[in-house]
Every structure is written in structure tokens, then in C-alpha cells.
């Protein structure tokens, strides 16, 4: 082993000396088309099954390893056909999907209509316990494979029919005009046969059809992704691969970037925002992204769900001085939120400044009054749960708590409750063992207003962490999805959003910019609309 390693290094050295070209695979040595990008990362919550990953870190990898029917343009966010040749419908309910020929998985298997239909049926089947299963809930037959309780009465959704290797049809249970635009999300990625025949082996080393293939993964340390040479799509990797290094503290990642130990950090800690321009100059990226930060209430906990608690929730929202916190803690890399969506949607897409109204306006006296009328904070004190490893949450949670304390005139009313890692934090929430209000950031899956509302607040939504349920809200969302006219659909969604402004299952805090910094070792770095780096475009050297 050591002998061969030494030989490799020797070859590298001579190659660089002779031609100054790259020597990939040598742990980041060399540049050019084979250079390795070293980027910061955090462990994903679950093994990387597409339909079981609803958090950002796992999603990053899926987006590198997989390609789906659609892809969102990195600059505009517009959904464009990728593996799909066409997705056609005449009635907004029955769709015919035709695939482009020639797509393959990195193990050589072709991507066919079966790859999609089998993957979606797997994701929807209740016994597979996939977190994103509700993304399939509009496909006809979902109720049979994913009943609210009890065993499934079918193994596959009747709405999915394979016509031939390149064609399948989808029947939705109701009209849903923008449904094709959701198909770029990772839950809809295709899966190879090996996923089903050798599941454990696949989880060890997921195989996809994207520009990168997973080389190795050591939990808590590093995931090595390497360029897949057989990839035929237009967005081939312009580097030799990406090493995703796990950091449990974003400050450490930032100092490592300055020390030249990594090339790319996509989470600039708040405490460094004052220095980042001086440190990195033009190698600092700060741009709007489809991310909103909220504080969600555990509506499954009776302490927070009583009828009078609505006033308390409204009051807490009004006790938060968003403007001061975004300017002092985040140095204006966040914008105070006044609705539950994101400005990147644009006014036509459904963003509406001020929709939240007085509930999102800082008013300490009104806040105190409402909280008192609602019977006060449960137990006289509230905690805000957050993960301590990413996103500089401690700084803003402490600031939010101070703001609430100041409004209530009680310096012990609110206190932060940190959880060590993102994965642990998500586990506490998905298992409903979090009994405090908790921070809930939402990075959109696709640039539609539907994605800011339905997964988060619809009854049984895939990321409805609050487990809030409201029949009127659900009805308006269903109605919006059925509209064939997009302006009408947006109007219905905004009507649904107004219910959120009354009930406040989650407090909107601020819209987040994507912040990233990179070393002089790499170039052509950009963030997409989801604030995820466009890894395949990065060049090394």
C-alpha cells in the first residue's frame, strides 16, 4: 500500500514538473480539469436516498450525484427540461413524460421510464418510511400505497404507467398546473436497479446519473466525490471532483479557508461578516437566495396549541426587533421578513411584502399585551431550540431572546436551547421530542410559492415540523394547485398565507442571502437560487 502511494506521488511530482498539468486523485494536488475542490459541509441526517432527504446538506450531494427530469437554472431558477424531452398535458391532470435517449447511471445502466416510476413508487410506499413521500401525494393511487393509518393496499401508484422505455404517463388525483415545475426536486430523481436489488450496498455508495460519482464517505469527516467521465449531460464537471469536509463549527471552516486548508465555504459565520470583505475581497459572494428563517412552534405540544395560545404566538412575533438583529448580527445579509415566502419568487411568483402585517411588526407594548391576554408564556418561560454547529444560530437566537425579554420586561422569559449537531437537531424535531419553539430555516426545493407553503404548513406536509393542521388552509392550497391560470393560483396561495398570519404556527424572521467565500485556488464560483454552490462549474487552478 505505502509503496504504491509513494509511486503515485512521484508520478504526480514529475507530471507537474514536466507539463504543469494536473494530477487528480492525489488528495487535492494539482489543478486544471482534474483539480479537486475542497469545500465545507455537514453530515446529512439520513443515508442519501433521494426521497428520504429533506435537509440541505444531504440535498447538496444528491444534486451533484443525480440529475432529474427537470433542472433549475442556476441563475434564474427557471425549471428547464433536463432528462425530460417533453412533459405534455392537455387538462393539467394527465401528463405524458418523454425522456431523452442516451442517459446512463454511473454503473452503466441506462436511465429509463422504469428508473423514474420505480423510484417514485419506492418513495411513496408507506412501509419505506421516506420523509419526502408527500411529494408524491398528488399522483393518483397515493392513498392506496400511503394510507393515513394501517397497511398499504397496493405496492405501486395506479397513476404511473410505463408506456415504453422512454415514455411514461402520470395521472394526478386533481388538477395541478405547475406540477411539472416541481420535478427538478431531489425526491423525483431516478434510481438504478441496484438500489432495489442491493439496497445496503447502494446506501454504502450511492450510484446516480449526475456529473459526479461518490468515491468514498467517512461519516463525520469527509465525502469524496469524483467527476464521472461517462456523464453525457451539458453540465459536465469542470473540475476533477469535490471533497466535502465535515465541519461542526462554521468559524473553524472559515479559519481553514483563510489558512488555505479548504477552497470553499458556503456558510460564512455571522461573527466574521465584519471582516469578510477585507479578508476575501472579490472572493466573497453575497446574493439573495430562496431561504427564509422562521421560529416554528411545536403544535403537537398542548402547551403551545391551546386556543388562547394564538395570541401568545402573535405576541412573540411582535416582540422581535427584526430590523436591529439583521443589521447588527447579520450586517444586512438578511432582510426582515414580512411574509412566509421569499423575494426571489418575485411579485408575480407570489412574494408579497407586508402580507404578514402587524404580526411581523416590532411593537413591544402590543406584544406584551397580547402575550398577557393569551395567558402568558407556557410555564412562564420559553426556550428556542437550535443547532449549534452551522449557521451562527447562537448569535441570533440570543438576540431574539433578548428582544423578547426586553419587550416583556422579564430578563429570564426566553433562553436559547442549543443542540450540538444539525443531524441530532433534525432527529429531535422529526421524532417530535422537541417541546420548545425551534428554529426552522427553509431553503426552497423549487422556485414556486407552493413550495414555501405546502410542504411546511399543509396537513401531513413533508416538512411540516410543527404538525400544524388547518382545514381552510389545506382547502385553499388544493384550490390553488387546481388553477390552470398561474396568477389565480398565486392569489389562492396568498389567501392561504393570510391564515398563517392569524394562526402563526411559525414566526417569519428574515429572508436569508446566500453567503459564500472561496480561495484564490478556485474560480468561476457561483451560488444558485438555492444558495448552493454550482459545484460542477468551478475550475481549479
Amino acid at each position, binding site marked *: 500500500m505505502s509503496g504504491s502511494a509513494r509511486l503515485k506521488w512521484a508520478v504526480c511530482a514529475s507530471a507537474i514538473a514536466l507539463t504543469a498539468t494536473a494530477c487528480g486523485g492525489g488528495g487535492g494536488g494539482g489543478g486544471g480539469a482534474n483539480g479537486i475542490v475542497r469545500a465545507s459541509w455537514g453530515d446529512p441526517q439520513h443515508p442519501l436516498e433521494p426521497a428520504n432527504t429533506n435537509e440541505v446538506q444531504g440535498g447538496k450531494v444528491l444534486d451533484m450525484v443525480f440529475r432529474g427530469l427537470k433542472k433549475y437554472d442556476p441563475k434564474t431558477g427557471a425549471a428547464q427540461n433536463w432528462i425530460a424531452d417533453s412533459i405534455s398535458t392537455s387538462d393539467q391532470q394527465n401528463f405524458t413524460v418523454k425522456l431523452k435517449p442516451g442517459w446512463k447511471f454511473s454503473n452503466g445502466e441506462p436511465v429509463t421510464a422504469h428508473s423514474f416510476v420505480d423510484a417514485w413508487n419506492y418513495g411513496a410506499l408507506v412501509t419505506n418510511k421516506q420523509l419526502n413521500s408527500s411529494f408524491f401525494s398528488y399522483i393518483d393511487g397515493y392513498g392506496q400505497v400511503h394510507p393515513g393509518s394501517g397497511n398499504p393496499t397496493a405496492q405501486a401508484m395506479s397513476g404511473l404507467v410505463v408506456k415504453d422505455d422512454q415514455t411514461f404517463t402520470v395521472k394526478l388525483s386533481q388538477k395541478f398546473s405547475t406540477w411539472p415545475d416541481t420535478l427538478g426536486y431531489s425526491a423525483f430523481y431516478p434510481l438504478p436497479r441496484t438500489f432495489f436489488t442491493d439496497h445496503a450496498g447502494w446506501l454504502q455508495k450511492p450510484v446516480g446519473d449526475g456529473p459526479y460519482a461518490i468515491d468514498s464517505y467517512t461519516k463525520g469527516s469527509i465525502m469524496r466525490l469524483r467527476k464521472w467521465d461517462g456523464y453525457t449531460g451539458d453540465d459536465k464537471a469542470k473540475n476533477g471532483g469535490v471533497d466535502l469536509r465535515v465541519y461542526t463549527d462554521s468559524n473553524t471552516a472559515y479559519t481553514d479557508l483563510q489558512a488555505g486548508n479548504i477552497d470553499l465555504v458556503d456558510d460564512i459565520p455571522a*461573527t466574521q461578516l*465584519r*471582516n469578510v470583505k477585507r479578508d476575501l475581497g472579490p472572493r466573497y459572494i453575497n446574493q439573495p437566495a430562496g431561504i427564509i428563517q422562521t421560529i416554528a412552534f411545536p403544535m403537537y405540544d398542548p402547551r403551545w396549541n391551546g386556543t388562547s395560545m394564538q395570541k401568545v404566538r402573535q405576541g412573540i412575533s411582535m416582540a422581535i426587533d427584526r430590523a436591529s438583529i439583521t443589521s*447588527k*448580527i447579520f450586517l444586512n445579509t438578511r432582510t426582515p421578513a414580512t411574509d412566509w415566502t421569499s423575494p426571489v419568487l418575485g411579485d408575480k411568483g407570489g412574494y408579497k411584502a407586508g402580507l404578514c402585517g402587524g404580526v411581523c411588526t416590532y411593537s413591544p407594548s402590543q406584544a406584551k399585551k397580547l402575550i398577557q391576554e393569551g395567558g402568558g408564556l407556557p410555564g412562564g418561560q420559553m426556550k428556542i431550540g437550535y443547532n449549534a454547529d452551522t449557521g451562527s444560530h447562537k*448569535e441570533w437566537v*440570543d438576540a431574539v431572546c433578548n428582544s423578547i425579554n426586553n419587550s416583556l420586561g422579564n*430578563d429570564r422569559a426566553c433562553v436559547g436551547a442549543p443542540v450540538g449537531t444539525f443531524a441530532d437537531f433534525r432527529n429531535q424535531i422529526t421524532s417530535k421530542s422537541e417541546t420548545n419553539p425551534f428554529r426552522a430555516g427553509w431553503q426552497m426545493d423549487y422556485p414556486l410559492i407552493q413550495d414555501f407553503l405546502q410542504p411546511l404548513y399543509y396537513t401531513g406536509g413533508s416538512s411540516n415540523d410543527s404538525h400544524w393542521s388547518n382545514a381552510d388552509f389545506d382547502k385553499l392550497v388544493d384550490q390553488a394547485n387546481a388553477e390552470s391560470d398561474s396568477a389565480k393560483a398565486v392569489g389562492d396561495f396568498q389567501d392561504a398565507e393570510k391564515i398563517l398570519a392569524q394562526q402563526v404556527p411559525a414566526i417569519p424572521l428574515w429572508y436569508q442571502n446566500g453567503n459564500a467565500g472561496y480561495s484564490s485556488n478556485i474560480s468561476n464560483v457561483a451560488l444558485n437560487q438555492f444558495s448552493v454552490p454550482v459545484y460542477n462549474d468551478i475550475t481549479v487552478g
Partner: protein
Amino acid sequence: MPEPLTPPNGRTASEAIGNAGAGGTMDFAASEAVSIGLATAPTARARSLWSDAWHDLRRNPVFIVSALLIVFLVVIAIWPQLIATGNPLACDINKSLLGPAPGHPFGFDTQGCDVYTRTVYGARASVTVGVCATAGAALLGGVLGGFAGFFGGWWDALLSRVSDIFFGIPIILGGLVFLSVVTNATVWPVVGFIVLLGWPQIARIARGAVITAKQNDYVQAARALGAGPIRMLLRHIAPNAVAPVIVVATIALGTYISLEATLSFLGVGLKPPTVSWGIDISSASTQIRNAPHMLLWPAAALSVTVLAFIMLGDAVRDALDPKLR
């Protein structure tokens, strides 16, 4: 990040064991002999070990300085409002990271809290943890170690092995494991943890001191005169074995305070809203480039406090153990 704090911690603790352990027990018999010898001199009234030590201490500038500092610390730990009128939990985000201002001599931290007020109030947590943990560890370790030394046999073997086990637990790792599951925001879990890991050190010293004292002639004489074990232990052995325990405990007090700060720095010790230097140092460490004053004051207060207690321990050891001079 924990590195700057851990080594001094570990080192001082082990030094304390080494010095006081070997020196304290062995030389104690010698000093006893000296005072017995002096007692035959006709001139002065015989001075006990304690009055002798007090006589020395009063003339030791190290003792005077550290004692004054400690008295000051204890006073502001009990009545912080004597010198800080503000509220350590009242923070105004709009003053985030501002420098010194009238009425706020140390400036403001990230959250816009007054650094001066927080530094003053931080003394309470540190002193409480230090004093309570030391008292607990000295009591538990002294009693268990004393019994082990006096009764010997299986009781001694058992206690020595148990204390070996506790010695084997790395203190920072143990803190991370035990305290990370605690959600209670008071000082007591931290005190309990330090007592749990601190008592074996004192038990070893106490055991050695008791074994040495047990062999003295006056103990044999008491035994010959028919004294029971309890009477011997309380009247003759304990007063002559307690000095080394006091020395080690005083030095340990300083290290316990820095241990509390270390654990709080790592996020497992004291938890907000408790005001602690460790917590403040932790949140200041990431802002050192923007607001060094945030780190400077709590760190200075912590250093001075630890130094004061360790200096006091040194002075007491010198006084009780003249041979070391």
C-alpha cells in the same frame, strides 16, 4: 479551541498532587517533632502548628495580596450590585460591540450587554463553583481517605481502587459526556461533577497523612491508655492530618474555577441565563478581531481569580510546611 485552557489546568492539578502529596505527609511528622522539641524550651509558651502558621502568613506579602483579592471577590460575588448597578441580562442589540462609553467602562458585547456588569456578575458563578466544589471534594475525600488510612485492610483496598477508577476518567472528556445530558441551568450539576472527579485526589492525601499520623508515639500512647478508635481518630489523628488536605484543597480551588470556565467555554458547564466568565469568553473568542475588549475583561477577571486562589494555596503550604521553604 479548548487547548489554551486545558494544559495549565491539568498541569497545576498534577503538581498539586505531587508536591503536597509527597511533601505534606512526610514532612509533617518532622514538623511535629520540631514543635515537640520546642515545647521543652523554657522561654516561650509552646505555639501550636496553627498559630505558628498564622504567625508566618501574616508576614507573607503573597498571602496578604491574595487574601485581599479573595475577600474582594467573595464580597462582589455576594453583593455584585455594590460596584455594578446595571443588570447583566439587560441587553440592547443596537449597542452591539460598541466600545467603552460613559457608565459602561468595558464596552458592550455582541448582544449589546454591558461587559463590565457581566464581568462583575460572573464572579458569583466562579466563586460559588470553586468554594462549593472544594468544600464537597475536601469533605468527601477527607472522610473517605481518612477512614482508608486509619482502618486499612479491605476498606483501604476498596477505596484506593475506587479512587483509581475516578482518576482514570479524563476530566474534560468526562465533563463533555456527563454534563452534556444535563439541561439544568444552575451551578449544582457542575459542582457535583467536579466533586465527583476531584475527591480521589484529596482522599489520597488524607490517607497518607492519616497513615503517617497513626504511627506517632502519642497515638500509640493513647491506644495503650485504652482510647477507642473514634476518639483516637478525632482527638489525635485528624487535627494532625488535616493540614495537607487544607493545602491541596486551597490550590485545587483555583483549578476548579478554571475547570468551570473551561466546561462553560465548551458549552457543557454553566448555561445561560447564568452569567459566567467561561460563557462570555466563549462567545467573545469568535469576535476577537472585531471587539477584543469583549474577550479581555472576562479573561482577565478569570486569570486574576485563579491566580489569587493558587497563590493563597502556595502561601498556606509554605506556612504549614516549613521544610519546603
